[in-house]
């Protein structure tokens, strides 16, 4: 039984129906010919002028820039435009000062030395640099690389490239809660292993890997340890010396900074050698040639400094909102599963699987909220996410998973709205679902023999 406002909102998402027509006749979508509607559906996917913007609940995909970060960047976009590597004039000097200040800000956040930070174009480049760079540098004697099955696509793809170059790569499986088995890691490390790469916080299910323990294992076995900390930096306290990490990737646009910049932490004591990916004038200690984009670096630095100051406040708030969202949803509707370990996680990334509901249809029904099912890099394909498959979720639950991202700017109203909409739509979709009917009658779906036609 749908209320008028819900109907209007649902029909409002069908393009090709004008605003006034929408308001006057909320029950007449069939008046516009289906073909025309279809064409217009495909044509423009941008919001109309008077249409309300959806709520942003996809903080793992990217984050809005904090106004303080933009404020720090603007002078370097407008007036202080010098190349930081120009040594002969004031434009270069002021740009270089800003870049070094940003470097210090990034280093302070992770407990590193500024000389250990290399600015890159993002976490993808940092991941590529560390994995390919370390493996290739030590390839004379070490040919084995270890990573996990739940890593980000760029890590998995870099490893695939290494495989084609003749390296041995082990993709370690994860337990059903998303964490890796430390004993299995110890057994997988060989004398010719050069690198272990495990991400700190997973971008799809939010689980926090036991980085400290992995670091200790790797140190004891003399293996380099790389972690993709794009989702973790600035959100949980990180100290590279405590965690015994040798390489760490940082992404700007995940911590309320600008897009197009990131950093790579490369340990100097004990020294980690990398074969550089990008050749050129020898900037960034020869590890990453190319002009450092001063405004972006300044933005990254400002974002890191802010993150350090606001970490406690943000963490408390995000945890509160996350508990609120999950409680609301789970108490109202049955058969909802949270993917990933309930304790070892970052609270701002919630991945819920709604049984008997198709994920894509739920996403389309929740048109007023910007959500995603799985990561942005796999959302184009219709296949369920490989991360969910790696943690062993059933095929049907993997298809019906939605990822809610909560961040610094999320409000209680947004969370309440999202929860209510979600509950409404799941109920509606379940009403329509024959599987749900069968379950209500008490039939066990796993016992059914679906016939082949």
């Amino acid at each position, binding site marked *: 039984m749908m209320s008028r406002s819900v109907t209007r909102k649902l029909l409002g998402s069908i393009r090709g129906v004008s605003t006034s027509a929408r308001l006057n006749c909320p029950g007449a979508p069939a008046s516009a010919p289906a073909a025309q509607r279809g064409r217009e559906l495909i044509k423009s996917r941008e*919001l109309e*002028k*008077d*249409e*309300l*913007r*959806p*709520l*942003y609940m996809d903080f793992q995909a990217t984050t*809005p820039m904090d*106004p*303080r970060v*933009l*404020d720090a960047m*603007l002078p370097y976009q407008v007036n202080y435009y010098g190349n930081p590597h120009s040594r002969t004039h004031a434009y270069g000097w002021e740009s270089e000062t800003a870049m070094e200040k940003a470097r210090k800000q990034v280093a302070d956040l992770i407990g590193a030395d500024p000389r250990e930070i290399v600015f890159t174009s993002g976490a993808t480049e940092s991941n590529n640099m560390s994995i390919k760079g370390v493996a290739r540098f030590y390839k004379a004697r070490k040919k084995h690389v270890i990573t996990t099955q739940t890593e980000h696509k760029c890590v998995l793809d870099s490893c695939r490239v290494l495989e084609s170059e003749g390296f041995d790569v082990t993709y370690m499986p994860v337990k059903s809660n998303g964490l890796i088995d430390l004993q299995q890691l110890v057994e997988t490390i060989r004398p010719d292993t050069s690198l272990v790469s495990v991400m700190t916080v997973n971008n799809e299910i939010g689980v926090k890997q036991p980085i400290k323990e992995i670091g200790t294992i790797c140190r004891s076995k003399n293996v380099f340890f790389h972690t993709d900390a794009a989702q973790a930096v600035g959100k949980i306290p990180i100290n590279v010396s405590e965690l015994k990490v040798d390489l760490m990737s940082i992404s700007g646009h995940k911590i309320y900074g600008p897009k197009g910049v990131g950093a790579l932490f490369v340990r100097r004591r004990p020294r980690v050698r990398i074969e550089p990916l990008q050749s050129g004038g020898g900037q960034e200690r020869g590890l990453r040639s190319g002009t450092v984009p001063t405004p972006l670096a300044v933005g990254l630095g400002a974002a890191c400094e802010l993150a350090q100051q606001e970490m406690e*406040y943000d963490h408390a708030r995000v945890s509160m909102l996350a508990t609120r969202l999950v409680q609301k949803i789970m108490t109202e509707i049955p058969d909802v599963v949270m993917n990933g370990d309930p304790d070892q996680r970052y609270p701002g990334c919630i991945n819920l699987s709604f049984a008997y509901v198709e994920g894509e249809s739920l996403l389309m029904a929740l048109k*007023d*909220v910007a959500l995603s099912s799985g990561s942005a890099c796999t959302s184009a394909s219709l296949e369920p996410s490989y991360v969910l498959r790696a943690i062993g979720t059933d095929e049907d639950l993997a298809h019906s998973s939605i990822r809610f991202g909560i961040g*610094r*700017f*999320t*409000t209680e*109203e*947004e969370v309440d*709205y999202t929860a209510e909409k979600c509950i409404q739509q799941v109920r509606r979709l379940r009403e329509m679902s024959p599987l749900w009917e069968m379950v209500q009658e008490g039939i066990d779906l796993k016992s059914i023999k679906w016939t082949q036609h």
Partner: protein
Amino acid sequence: MAASSRAQVLSLYRSLLKESRAFPSYNYRTYALRRVRDAFRENRSVKDPQALELLLNKARDSLAIIQRQVSVGRMYETQRTVVEPEPK
């Protein structure tokens, strides 16, 4: 001395809230209002004049930042979000 600095603090607090309300973006506006309130509440019992001066300077810088960012936001305004109440 205590009275004038208390008045100073209050006037700064009011200016910050007034400027924050002007943010066109729902998320920035709610964040600024919330953060300003919580920051002032948190530092309510600071007595040391040096620490106080530091915090007040930070507040004045934040005020300037908010004013600039409100102007930038106004230059590139966009539609309201779904949870915003309709303007009267």
